[in-house]
């Protein structure tokens, strides 16, 4: 396997200038994270991962922070896309980005003490403290919402507990009449400390955890994690495993996209459309269960390959897909024929290309705003370099565009599955896994239904996990939602939100 990761150590100012110049020359920011490597190298490190345009290559400049001075030149003023990453690193490691315009806490809520940095290696917590935080009795660091002042401005607080069966998130609207002037979402209510949990697991047990980060992207998470560990240990997986992974990634995309399009109907009150979408999604999930034993395709991925030969169910997949395709075509015809539905979608929740680029928006939301970015094309992995497809982009940037990008990608997934099932790929399902060498690191990535998904893993001196960083697409896209709903009316918010369909769990981690 060709190594496409190019690490480069840079000091202080140079690091900042380099990152800015990469960004200016059109490289795409993928993720930013820190590691605590004080044990081996006596320093914290901050990594920024960029994708080179038009080339399967990652530029990864990193910075070492030694001694007592735990601050660095913040990148946010020049690269707005890193604003959440810098806040998260500040919460988790206590490394301060100088010049960051908004250093309020991002991940931790009020009861969590301010001087506790859980991702540091020497972090400890007593039973008594744990109980106190868990009960949320002590408000140690009150959070201040942004306030909009002026005549006729009023606040609408929504959540964190919602009426539907969804996860917690708080939305603070500042509205003038029915028009949304400003929206501040507050998330991370169910932060599970997933990255810390990974450190306690072995690399091979980590797959089960990765599959449970975000339900509807279980398979993508598992795949990206396995890929990272395999690359780190230099394991090449057999053709058959690649084919099965690609197949299941597309099946996952298909059921998600169809379900998401159906969900948008709940936002406009088109109950018939919602029911039709849910029915097709259910049929596809039952197919998942028949071929993999899990509706969410869990338990198939292992380090080194897969556990099940999905190709033995090729007939079932093809027949189910055939009926699903017919249903899906009728479903799209129904939706596009319902003028009252389409009218609601058009021009609602517009996200401009400029803001999508600046905030590093990814996946369907980015492609609907004219950002032509798809990890399957930008960094071909598994069998994607052998499949014919084009990322679908449109420049409208509204809710309708996000629906249409999903609709086109769903059709594309169907034809990719057909193409995959036509060929033969050996018999071997999994390769022998090589031992992980000490102090090795690697990226794993894929295009999940919501957008680009990244894992970065590093081993310690004994070849166990030192750091597992995961970056879900929801984490990139949540900050864009307030921009998309600005100027829309309050009753249109649920629709705009559904068109992004972001995961709370995948963001809270």
């Amino acid at each position, binding site marked *: 396997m060709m190594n496409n990761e190019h690490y480069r150590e840079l000091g202080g100012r140079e690091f900042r200038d380099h990152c800015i110049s990469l960004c200016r020359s059109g490289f795409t920011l993928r993720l930013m994270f820190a590691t605590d490597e004080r044990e081996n190298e006596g320093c914290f490190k901050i990594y920024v991962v960029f994708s080179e345009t038009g080339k399967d290559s990652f530029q990864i400049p990193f910075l070492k922070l030694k001694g007592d001075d735990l601050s660095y030149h913040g990148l946010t003023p020049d690269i707005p896309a890193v604003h959440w990453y810098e806040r998260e690193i500040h919460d988790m490691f206590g490394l301060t980005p100088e010049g960051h315009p908004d250093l309020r806490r991002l991940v931790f809520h009020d009861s969590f003490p301010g001087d506790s940095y859980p991702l540091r290696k020497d972090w400890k917590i007593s039973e008594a403290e744990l109980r106190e935080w868990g009960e949320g009795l002590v408000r140690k660091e009150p959070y201040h919402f942004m306030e909009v002042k002026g005549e006729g401005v009023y606040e609408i607080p*929504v959540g964190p507990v919602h009426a539907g069966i969804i996860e917690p998130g708080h939305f603070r609207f500042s509205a003038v009449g029915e028009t949304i002037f400003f929206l501040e979402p507050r998330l991370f209510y169910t932060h599970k400390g997933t990255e810390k949990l990974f450190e306690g697991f072995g690399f091979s047990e980590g797959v089960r955890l990765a599959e449970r980060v975000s339900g509807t992207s279980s398979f993508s998470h598992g795949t990206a994690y396995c890929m990272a560990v395999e690359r780190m240990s230099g394991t090449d997986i057999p053709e058959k495993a690649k084919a099965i992974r690609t197949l299941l990634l597309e099946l996952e995309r298909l059921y998600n996209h169809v379900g998401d399009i159906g969900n948008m109907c709940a936002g406009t009150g088109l*109950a018939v459309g919602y029911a039709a979408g849910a029915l097709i999604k259910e049929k596809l999930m039952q197919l998942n269960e028949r071929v993999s034993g899990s509706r969410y395709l869990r338990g198939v991925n292992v380090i080194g390959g897969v556990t099940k030969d999905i190709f033995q169910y090729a007939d079932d997949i093809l027949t189910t897909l055939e009926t699903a395709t017919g249903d899906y075509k009728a479903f799209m015809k129904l939706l596009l024929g319902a003028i009252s539905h389409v009218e609601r979608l058009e021009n609602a929740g517009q996200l401009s290309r400029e803001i999508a680029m600046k905030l590093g928006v990814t996946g369907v939301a980015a492609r609907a705003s004219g950002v032509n970015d798809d990890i399957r094309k930008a960094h071909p992995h598994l069998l994607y370099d052998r499949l014919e497809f084009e990322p679908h982009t449109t420049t409208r940037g509204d809710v309708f565009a996000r629906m249409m990008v999903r609709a086109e990608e769903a059709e594309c997934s169907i034809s990719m599955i057909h193409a995959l099932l036509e060929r033969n790929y050996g018999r071997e399902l999994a390769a022998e896994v090589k031992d992980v060498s000490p102090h090795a690191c690697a990226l794993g990535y894929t295009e999940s239904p919501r957008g680009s998904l990244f894992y970065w893993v590093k081993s310690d001196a004994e070849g166990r996990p030192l750091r597992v960083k995961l970056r879900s697409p929801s984490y990139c896209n949540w900050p864009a939602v307030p921009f998309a709903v600005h100027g829309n009316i309050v009753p249109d918010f649920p629709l705009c939100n559904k068109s992004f369909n972001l995961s709370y769990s995948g963001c809270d981690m």
Partner: protein
Amino acid sequence: MEYLQFIVIIIFSPLIQGIIKKVKAAMQGRVGPGVFQPYYDLVRLLKKEMVISGVTSWVFRATPFIVFASTVAAAMIIPVITTRSPFSAMGDVIALIYIFALGRFFMALAGLDAGTAFGGEGSSREMAVAMLVEPMMMLSIFTAAIAAGSTNIAVIAEKQDIFYSPSHVLALSAFIVAVVAETGRIPVDNPDTHLELTMIHEGMLLEYSGRYLALMEWAHFMKQMLLFTLAVDIFFPLGIPAATGLPGLAASFGIYSLKMVLMAVLMAAIESSRAKLRFFQLPSLLGGAFVLALLSLLTYIMMGK
């Protein structure tokens, strides 16, 4: 016997709601709850403990009774299965609309009373919609009233020969839009949503629980059936007798039931075929219906039928 015809509305209104839900479920390919589910829901709510916000005033506690009582009063002046309504002297169609307005006024106040954002939103939207619906509804009834020479609903219902003309069709279309808006159905409001930010009618009720909620829900079912009844009284009075004897009433009840079920199916069909309108587009729909009602009146005056 005829004194008790309003009881029909009180007893059967949850059933109409159940039928609408059942038809909607069928149109979505679902089995859906049984048609008696609204009764079970009311019984469940009546048994439940109430939670009342500490910041509310007497308005909040009085509203369920005012809304329920005003709806029952409206039911009394409407001919349901016979036009010999002894209470019809109490009020005409204008009184009816204002009795509804009384309930709405208190419901909007109660929505504001608890001081929550969703209640206030619901109240403000409800009043905005009401402002457009009330005159339109009144105007669409006026055509029939002028034709009958009276605003008394019983008198309008008895003059069955003057209808089925262009003005009648126009007024009926406007009135159907008014019924959709008044019952809080798609495309004006979504009765099945759990999304607080989009609610109109449900938003005002959000703070209610237990017995009070049961009263408000029941009143809403009654209002829905009343509007359906009003629609058939004014636009399809065929088969409603002036009789008071038991056989005549029984036959009339059969015809009435059939009409109500047809109205329920019509409502479910309207709801299933459309998405909800964007809130600021409501004036176009309601304004359009107002124009229809106006045209109906002009047509009647110019054509004489």
